[in-house]
């Protein structure tokens, strides 16, 4: 057997086995791997976020703006090159930390107001265009398509599923009589969609297991 001689691969393989050992029972090797993972992840993402977010988008451009090397001066801004104006978002970012001090906590609301305002605007227009209008438009389809029997069955099933599922979420009247029957059909459609979601979730989780086994077999043990 031609086992890998790469130290990093050995570390990855052993930590994988340590994590798998939890399936038998909790043990110190699992705890070691778990704590390593939490610690390394936290450290890695703090450093990564500093260099990819704060340094790249704030520190570096501000240093360039005030370094005196850019033509037009620190306030000669244009799209993508905001120069010294980046002080403003930088200040809003710092204000978020005022939550750590009870007396100045209210200052963080200014930053939160900007964040919530921008994202509410982006999300609302995006949702309206991408989901609401387009999905309602796609839901309005002919129930009978001449010469396409199965497409017609599909369209009828789709429409029945849509209407009954929507009526299931109508709570202004007790679900009895016709509404009760219709919403019961809606529950069946919802159950089928939950089942499909569960199946896809299982596929995702098994894929992760396959990925780890492929790593052990191919990268560590070189069995394939």
């Amino acid at each position, binding site marked *: 057997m031609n086992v890998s001689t790469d130290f990093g691969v050995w570390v990855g393989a052993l930590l994988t086995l340590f994590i798998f050992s939890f399936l038998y029972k909790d043990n110190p090797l699992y705890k070691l791997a778990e704590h390593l993972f939490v610690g390394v992840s936290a450290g890695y993402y703090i450093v990564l976020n500093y260099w990819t977010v704060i340094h790249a988008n704030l520190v570096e451009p501000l240093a360039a703006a005030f370094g005196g090397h850019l033509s037009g001066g620190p306030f000669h801004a244009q799209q993508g090159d905001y120069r010294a104006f980046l002080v403003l978002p930088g200040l809003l970012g710092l204000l978020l930390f005022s939550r750590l001090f009870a007396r100045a906590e209210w200052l963080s609301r200014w930053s939160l107001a900007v964040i919530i305002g921008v994202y509410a605007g982006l999300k609302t227009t*995006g*949702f309206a265009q991408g989901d609401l209008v387009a999905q309602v438009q*796609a839901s309005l389809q002919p129930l009978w398509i001449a010469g396409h029997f199965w497409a017609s069955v599909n369209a009828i099933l789709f429409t029945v599923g849509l209407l009954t599922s929507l009526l299931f979420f109508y709570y202004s009247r007790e679900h009895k009589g016709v509404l009760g029957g219709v919403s019961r059909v809606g529950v069946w459609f919802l159950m089928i969609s939950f089942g499909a979601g569960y199946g*896809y979730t299982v596929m*995702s989780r*098994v894929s992760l297991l*396959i990925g780890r086994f492929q790593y052990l077999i191919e990268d560590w043990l070189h*069995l394939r």
Partner: protein
Amino acid sequence: MPIAVLEKLDRRWLFLVLGLLVLGPLLWPIGLPVVPSRPVIQFRDAIAAVPQGSTVLMSCDYDPASRPELVPMTVTALRQLWDRHCRVVVTVLWNGGPALVDQTIESVANEYRARGIRLVDGVDYVNLGYKSGNEAVMVLMGQGVKSTFPVDQHGRPTSSLPILREVRNYSSFALLVNISAGYPGTKEWEQQVNSRFHLPMVSGCTAVSAPEYYPYLQSGQLRGMLGGMAGAAEYEKLRGERGPATHGMDAQSLAHLFIAACIVLGNVVHWGRRRGARP
């Protein structure tokens, strides 16, 4: 098997059987059939419909956690795009992803170089790397790709890269290929870019997020979709490749059969218990 035995079965036996069912086919493949589904065929066809030599935007929004599902589809999509002589502009909206994506792009580019086909970083493809801001980045790219990404993953000014010389905004791209592990990903590209800038779009996503994106496929907002490892394997099959997703599908199928059997047995136990509890 008596219900009493099933009731007291140690769940570690289930873990062991599942582990063996996954491990076995990876060591000794069975070769269960992989049949391409309609969304996968549509994905392949959408890329095939892109004019040769076009510039395509590919956003690889994932990190190493989704590697088994998403790297195989990234590899196959890159091969199809490069077989059509497309220029590929790659972005990453997950900050844990750029190194993995870079490694994946280079491994595929090296395959072509080994066959004597010249692929030059900055001319035929570029990895613009990570930019924080999620939806805000998507909207900004609509105003200017180079102003949103002043430098690429390797720190080169994007204004100096030949591949981006004629790229201004989304109108410069023939297609958006989004490989998505969650947020930000397909849903956000759909809402912010496809619906607003009308850039045709296909998606390859993790299986867990696939059900959420089917409505976009049904409405025609997505031109095609690859859902999880199965989608990646079907795509490999369509392209006549045998990649890691195809190798994993035997294990995937056996694991699914076993879990389905466990669900049936679990219900039998529950049913037996209810019958036993009746006076």
